């Protein structure tokens, strides 16, 4: 960090192993968008199997055989029909990739890295080299995860939750392959790399927000987005280590023959106390994993939603031309949400044989945590009141986020109450619920964020017509995909079924499944608008000023794109983040850094 180099950096130092938070943010963004698309492709394949179980996949089946070779196709998609193992692998990897390689790196790694230092007026992150290390750990974890598609036996196929004993006994390494080279083991190794990445990142974020705010920027003058990143970073910092511990323990179970998650008297496929062709002692506890896993994975849910709320809040304040309603309530709710998210984890485990008192405790904490979510949503909706709403492209996405998140949040209620959870647990209702939060919720917010900050990153605006088309089709298709899932779930269809028509309740709602699948493929097609718009606008978009949205927060006072070091002179902050439509001013926005009206 001591480098006093004035010379121009070479290509590699500038674009590949860069320590500039903006370059790293873009690296994160591009990589994560690729993963997001890859994860989406996986689910589009799954949707075929769900809609038309056992039918050979048109086009894609042949294409994959070409691409991956006949041997691979023979193992995973003989004759273009996917095997149940491959189906499970696609499901598990879809979840893992979307959450850990797609959405979180986009929200935290890309938006957080690029926007947050600019919004606090800092020249860079507090630890630029650690920032770079964080990105490369993430990239390594991603590569390890993806490489597991190529080992015999395929990628991890025990669900993204990887419940042992299944995950401990699944996928023994093929003869002649090193012990680490089986899908589930690679998944665990990849997770350890990703956890390291998020640990490095979260330390960096917290230190940056605490130490590097410019003069005058008190905590309550921070944009809500920064607050969201701040709380998110604490969640990542404190919730991920237990999963790392669990990952190490499961790795030991798979590699070193321990039985942390394997109880006594296990009979797998008729063999007593034999796992992966090896005798085990037994005496472990399968529920230990679930506790450690959900201790992470519930805060993880808030990691997925808080920064998205931050993005939406920024866009709404900017496009209603008035301050956010209840800024302090938003901040307090977010902090409270962060705390509470650590004591609700066992509501994912109501069906594991829980007694009344424990389930009542976790149901109560779950009901309590729903209150701040309601407050945040209400505050964002009330912010529209008395505004002058501009229907810009990012605003459309931000507005759509509100009802979508409302559906996602509300459908969490029947799952949070233990009794109504009994028929709904592990059904498509759950899938519908959390996809409404993460897909039409978070992903719409991400798109909104891309449209919103694109001018800052490139100096050009994305095309509005294409943006609107993208929005309309994405919004419709998302609902066509996920709304039927509630009906399937109520009907009793379990998740993760290779062929739900085996069950009479599954066969009864197969029509809905097909609707949902078509929605997913249409959703894929709708993204063409985005791809064209995104790549075309980088070079051909309309050139705009430094502050095209007439926004108040600090990032808009920097040049677009910001140079190395971000600000020509260190900015000073004089007021809160959302001083829009201040009475008596000629312009309807009053930037944080402006001394007086310019």
């Amino acid at each position, binding site marked *: 960090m001591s480098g006093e180099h004035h010379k121009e950096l070479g290509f590699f130092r500038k674009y590949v192993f860069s320590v500039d938070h903006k370059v790293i943010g873009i690296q994160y963004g591009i990589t994560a968008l690729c993963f997001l698309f890859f994860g989406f492709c996986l689910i589009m394949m799954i949707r075929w199997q769900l809609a038309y179980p056992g039918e050979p996949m048109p086009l894609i089946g042949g294409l994959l055989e070409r691409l991956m070779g006949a041997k691979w196709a023979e193992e995973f998609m003989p004759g273009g029909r996917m095997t149940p193992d491959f189906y499970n692998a696609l499901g598990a990897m879809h979840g893992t990739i979307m959450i850990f390689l797609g959405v979180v790196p986009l929200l935290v790694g890309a938006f957080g890295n690029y926007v947050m230092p600019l919004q606090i007026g800092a020249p860079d992150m507090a630890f630029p080299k650690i920032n770079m290390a964080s990105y490369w750990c993430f990239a390594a974890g991603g590569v390890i995860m993806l490489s597991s598609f190529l080992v015999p036996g395929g990628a991890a196929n025990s669900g993204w939750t990887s419940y042992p004993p299944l995950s401990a006994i699944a996928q023994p390494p093929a003869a002649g392959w090193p012990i680490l080279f089986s899908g589930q083991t690679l998944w665990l190794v990849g997770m350890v790399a990703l956890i390291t990445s998020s640990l490095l990142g979260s330390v960096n974020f917290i230190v940056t927000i605490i130490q590097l705010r410019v003069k005058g920027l008190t905590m309550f003058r921070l944009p809500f987005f920064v607050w969201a990143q701040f709380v998110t970073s604490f969640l990542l910092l404190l919730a991920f280590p237990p999963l790392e511990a669990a990952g190490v323990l499961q790795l030991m179970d798979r590699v070193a023959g321990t039985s942390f998650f394997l109880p006594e008297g296990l009979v797998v*496929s*008729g063999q007593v106390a034999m796992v992966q062709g090896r005798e085990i002692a037994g005496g472990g506890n399968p529920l230990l994993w679930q506790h450690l896993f959900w201790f992470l994975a519930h805060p993880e849910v808030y990691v997925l939603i808080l920064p998205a709320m931050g993005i939406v809040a920024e866009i709404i304040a900017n496009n209603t031309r008035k301050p956010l309603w209840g800024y302090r309530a938003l901040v307090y709710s977010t902090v409270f949400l962060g705390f509470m998210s650590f004591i609700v984890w066992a509501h994912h485990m109501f069906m594991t044989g829980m007694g009344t008192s424990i389930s009542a405790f976790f149901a109560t904490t779950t009901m309590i945590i729903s209150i701040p979510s309601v407050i945040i949503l209400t505050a964002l909706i009330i912010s529209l009141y008395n505004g002058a709403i501009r229907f810009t492209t990012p605003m459309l996405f931000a507005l759509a986020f509100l009802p979508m998140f409302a559906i996602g949040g509300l459908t969490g209620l029947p799952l949070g109450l233990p009794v109504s959870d009994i028929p709904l647990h592990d059904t498509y209702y759950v899938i519908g619920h959390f996809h409404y939060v993460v897909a039409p919720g978070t992903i719409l917010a991400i798109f909104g964020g891309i449209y919103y900050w694109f001018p800052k990153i490139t100096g050009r605006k994305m095309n509005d017509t294409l943006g609107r088309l993208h929005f309309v089709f994405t919004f419709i298709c998302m609902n066509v995909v996920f709304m039927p899932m509630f009906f399937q779930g109520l009907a009793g269809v379990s998740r993760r079924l290779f062929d739900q028509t085996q069950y009479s309740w599954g066969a009864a709602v197969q029509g809905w499944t097909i609707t949902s699948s078509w929605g997913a493929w249409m959703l894929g097609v709708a993204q063409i608008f985005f791809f064209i718009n995104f790549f075309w606008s980088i070079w051909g978009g309309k050139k705009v000023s430094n502050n095209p949205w007439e926004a108040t927060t600090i990032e808009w006072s920097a040049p677009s794109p910001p140079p190395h070091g971000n600000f020509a002179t260190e900015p000073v902050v004089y007021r809160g983040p959302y001083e829009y439509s201040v009475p008596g001013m000629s312009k309807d926005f009053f930037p944080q850094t402006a001394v007086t009206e310019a």
Partner: protein
Amino acid sequence: MHRGKAIVLALVGALTMGWGCQAMADDNAVIKGKIVFKGDVAKYKRSTIKTNKDPQCKKSKKKIGTYAVIFNKKTDPITVRNVMVYVKDGLGDRTYKAPDEPVLLTQFGCEYKPHVFGIMAGQTLTVKNGDATNHNIHFQSKVNTQHNFTQPKKGMTKDLTLLKEDTFFVKCDVHPWMGCHIQVFDHPFFAVTGKDGTFELKGLPAGKYTIEAFHEKFGKMSMTVEVASGETKTADFTYAP
């Protein structure tokens, strides 16, 4: 070594299904015998396996029974079926090439056919689903890859090769009663007793061999047999549990 190579050539030419080979004139020693049972036959009654979990099973085959112990009650003395007899030791460092013909393992009536069989390392094993239901094939191998795959449709086949010597059980996890026993050899001298309870190891070069019999319930038994060129010797095993 010369003789060994000759055998290999002969095998390549004329081997069918792993055992039974047309050997050259001086490699034609034969060891044959039967597997006799002395003991209480009534103790090992077979019972019907209830397949009503999956109605498709009955559509292929009306009734199936437990398979661990099957006697040939009509032979005299009573002999045991599904015993694997093979040369354990005595072939020295001769090497044998696996035949091109695949070994077929069929799932029919929710039962494996054959129930016990041998295969040479490198030989193709074709697994076929003959039922209109979903079968899962789970190898409990120790040395070879522990294949675990599914054949959801009737008529599906999959070719596998097992590369190393191994003895293991194969199970269907969808129909838990289904099981079969595979032994992988690096030579062609093995046989499984059938309805007459006899076995024959043909085409052996002259020499002193340890032959072993294996039954999944009664275990292993071995004896030493010396054969001269062209000679036929009898080696009977008796299980008396």
